[in-house]
């Protein structure tokens, strides 16, 4: 990866993340209705991406980026 790409992509990405983190609110469980909506789900996307990856694995050189679990509802 060239220094130019590194500067143009990863540094703004890290800055964006830092910036996003500054705007955080302490979100209480009863405020999470939108986060629990199915159109906000990471997991549904991960399943669809995993199915697509199986087919694209035969067409592209890299796989991954679908790992992880949890987060969102804060329901006990």
């Amino acid at each position, binding site marked *: 990866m060239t220094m130019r790409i*590194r500067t143009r992509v990863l540094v703004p*990405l890290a800055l964006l*993340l*830092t910036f996003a983190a500054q705007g955080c609110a302490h979100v209480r*469980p009863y*405020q999470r209705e939108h986060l*629990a909506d199915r159109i906000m789900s990471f997991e549904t996307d991960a399943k669809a991406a995993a199915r697509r990856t199986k087919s694209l694995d035969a067409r592209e050189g890299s796989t991954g980026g679908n790992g992880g679990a949890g987060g969102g509802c804060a329901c006990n």
Partner: protein
Amino acid sequence: MSSARFARLAVLVSVLLLTLQAAAEKAPPARLERDRMATLIADHKLSTLDGRTIRLRELRGKVVVVIFWASWCAPCRREMPEFDHLNTELATRGAQVVAISVDAKRANALQFVKQHGLRMVVAHDGPQGLVEELDLGLLPYTMVLDRQGAVAFDTGARRDYSVATISTAARQLSDTPALSSEEGTR
């Protein structure tokens, strides 16, 4: 520095920043004392899904199981039918369940109640009503009020409670005889 190492470093730094940010946020207010909770609950006007307005103060003399729930909350959806069964059983003991929905839209709570044929008293109060006043840290959140309206049991910060635990507490309280008017004023 190789690009892979840089990417890993960028992500690790980001995770660290996110974690530190979460830790550095102002801690949520301490849980209200039960007495304060009881006072706030007693006087709050609740609008039921069948069009009535009630105050829990009016139910003094009964043991009342109060459950804060939402139709979008998976554990709530699982427990509501169980609380409806408990309500039917408690009715014979002079006790009842009151479920308070914190859904943003009343229609969502109403649809859930209709779909599951729930018969207990269900009120809609939204996310900015009593639940915000009490600043409850869990959902569902359940408390059991004794006949005097005091909070005798609440799920508090516990995550290992069960409907069975709450049912036992409610039954025990409802088996406790009500105080006579003389005893109540001592």
